[in-house]
């Protein structure tokens, strides 16, 4: 009996992994399909611009406010620790490195997934449910080229820009708390930051991270929408999956990228 139960656990684990791997395979095949059907999206940039508006511009406020507050909190918390070592001048370094390397790409990715990614999933899912995608297909219009690819590319374009805005506002938030409020010297704040942050090693790697997250989140969002069960529950389940899968994907990819990028001091 106990052995049976144990076997059941393994069977379930095995089934779950098999399904997970199959889904990953489908998603990858979908990615190649999206990329190879991007001709329409790229020759008609209006399609992409429209989606950049819905994905990027409308996420601007939430991303900006979050960045500002996270930078301010980082500065306050960092001050507590740094002041014990008499190194409060390094606050600029702390705030800038945390934001540029980690928090900017990761938090923006999470916000983008829940604000824009879920909306894209719901939109595509609903188009599938109401046969709008099938209608396009019958009109000899490829829904992947016309609906999916523009949303995918809009995400890939918007998210790195949002991450940069997030980091910039975060650093500004840290400056506001650190310099006028806590009395750190403005010159030291910027100077130490500039001495410690390397544009290639830190800034560029942060941008690369945000691009990778953007591809992951956008792919998950369009894939879940396109792949959802065409019912009301199917769409809502797919929307939830987009947020959850995106969060896991971002954090896991972040670990992998960090290992490769910031390993050692070099």
């Amino acid at each position, binding site marked *: 009996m106990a052995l049976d139960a144990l076997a059941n656990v393994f069977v379930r684990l095995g089934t779950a992994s098999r399904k997970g791997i199959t889904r990953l395979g489908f998603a990858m095949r979908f990615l190649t399909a999206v990329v190879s059907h991007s001709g329409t999206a790229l020759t008609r940039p209006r399609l992409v*611009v429209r989606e950049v508006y819905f994905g990027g511009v409308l996420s601007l406020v939430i991303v900006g406010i979050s960045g500002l507050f996270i930078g301010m909190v980082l500065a306050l918390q960092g001050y507590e620790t740094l002041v014990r070592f008499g190194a409060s001048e390094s606050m600029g370094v702390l705030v800038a490195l945390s934001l540029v390397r980690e928090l900017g790409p990761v938090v923006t990715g999470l916000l983008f997934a829940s604000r824009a990614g879920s909306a894209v999933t719901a939109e595509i899912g609903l188009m599938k449910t109401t046969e709008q995608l099938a209608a396009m297909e019958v009109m000899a219009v490829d829904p992947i080229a016309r609906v999916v690819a523009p949303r995918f590319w809009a995400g890939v374009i918007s998210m*790195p*820009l949002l991450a*940069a805005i997030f980091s910039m506002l975060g650093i500004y938030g840290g400056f506001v708390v650190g310099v006028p409020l806590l009395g750190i010297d403005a010159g030291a704040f910027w100077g130490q930051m500039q*001495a410690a942050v390397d*544009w290639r090693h830190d800034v560029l790697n942060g941008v690369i991270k945000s691009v990778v997250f953007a591809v992951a989140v956008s792919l998950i969002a369009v894939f879940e929408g396109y792949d959802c069960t065409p019912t009301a529950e199917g769409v809502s389940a797919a929307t939830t999956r987009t947020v959850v899968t995106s969060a896991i994907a971002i954090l896991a990819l972040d670990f992998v990228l960090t290992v490769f990028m910031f390993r050692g*001091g070099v």
Partner: protein
Amino acid sequence: MTQRAIDLWVGIFVAIGLAALLFLALKVGNLLKFNEDAHGYVIEARFDNIGNLKPRAPVRSAGVVVGRVESIALDGKTFEAVARLRIDNRFQFTRDTIAAIYTSGLLGEQFVGLEAGGDTVMLKDGDTLRKTQSAMQLEKLVSQFLFSRAADGPSGPAGATPAPTPPSSSSSGVKP
């Protein structure tokens, strides 16, 4: 929402985003400064011990940043650390300049300090500094202090000047 309004908003968004990227690269990451560095010339300094010196640590002279540590390697024959220093073209140093590794603050980052001598010949790209002074190591310092206290009795002189490890350079010679 007309197409024109959407275009306008997306244009503003992209402009802000690119401005933020530029801000991160220039104001935070100091991209321009880096470029200046890349145009400088390289000199080598050999140390018995570099302590915690890291690549990209600043090179200062009289407290002013004049360049950066480009790379650090170990010479397999002499077992010395070879630090390649990239110095800004604006600054010229004499051939008998002394390079030393200092620590900013008690626990701060380490940097290379250059102290120019009186020679009339200036260093060129690829030259090696003959006189260097290794990093100060806390453990050595403490043990030296304790030994000298034990040897000299209560009125030991060791305290004020932390006896630097002797300049290593000339003995090992210059290797091309």
